């Protein structure tokens, strides 16, 4: 199929990044990241089912600095996708679509994401130690 000389819609790069667009793009990227991260979750559960030795091996990998970094990123992505997902469900109900409200809820999503993610990790470190 020849695309010829048809006019193109402007590319994403020409737009100045705005809170609304950046959060929307991140929402999708984080969703995909969580999907890939779910492989680790299933691996962890399968390890637990296979027995103590293999489970300890997986646990020690997840407890390494790389494992922790990955888990922290996964938590951040999950909490953000959850918070922004609730924002989207609210929009789907036809509410909160005014520009000012959309900006306010966007900021609330960012603040809540940081607070909940840090809260979970403080809880984990307080209970499990390093």
């Amino acid at each position, binding site marked *: 199929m020849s695309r010829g000389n048809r006019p193109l819609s402007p590319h994403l790069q020409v737009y100045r990044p705005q809170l609304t667009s950046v959060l929307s793009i991140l929402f*999708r990227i984080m*969703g*995909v990241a*969580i*999907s890939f991260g*779910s*492989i680790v*979750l*299933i691996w962890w*559960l*399968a390890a*637990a*089912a296979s*027995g*103590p030795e293999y*489970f*300890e091996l997986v646990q020690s990998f997840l407890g390494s600095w790389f494992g922790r970094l990955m888990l922290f990123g996964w*938590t951040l992505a*999950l*909490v953000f996708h*959850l918070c922004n*997902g*609730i924002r*989207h*469900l609210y929009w*789907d109900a036809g509410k909160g679509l005014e520009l000012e409200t959309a900006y306010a809820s966007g900021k609330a999503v960012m603040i809540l994401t940081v607070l909940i993610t840090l809260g*979970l*990790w403080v*809880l*984990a*470190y307080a*209970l*499990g*130690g390093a």
Partner: protein
Amino acid sequence: MSLRTPLARARGLGSAKEGVSHWWAQRLTSLALIPLVLWFVFSVALMTGADHAQFIAWVQSPIVAGLLILLISVGLLHSQQGMQVVIEDYVHGEASKVVTLFLSLSIHVVLGLTGVLSILMILFRG
């Protein structure tokens, strides 16, 4: 003036005869995942430092096993729905699109089965 019949508008299916159902199913899984994910992340944070025996004992409660099975199945269904939309948006060739969609669906089914069977194994065998 719309040329569509009132019945077509009420059904809301559009020319592709589907789409609303996918969109609606995605909202339903998101709604179900709000409490499931909140429960899961806080439970796992509270489980930090637990050894294998403690973890198995936790999963073996019927409520926990049930919620985990729900989380895995609804979560992977939601993941599948989301990945489908992303693939449909960005993979343009018809053949590569169909292949990618099939691969994504297959991986989600395998992951879901592995997860659910692991929970059942822990529940019944320990």
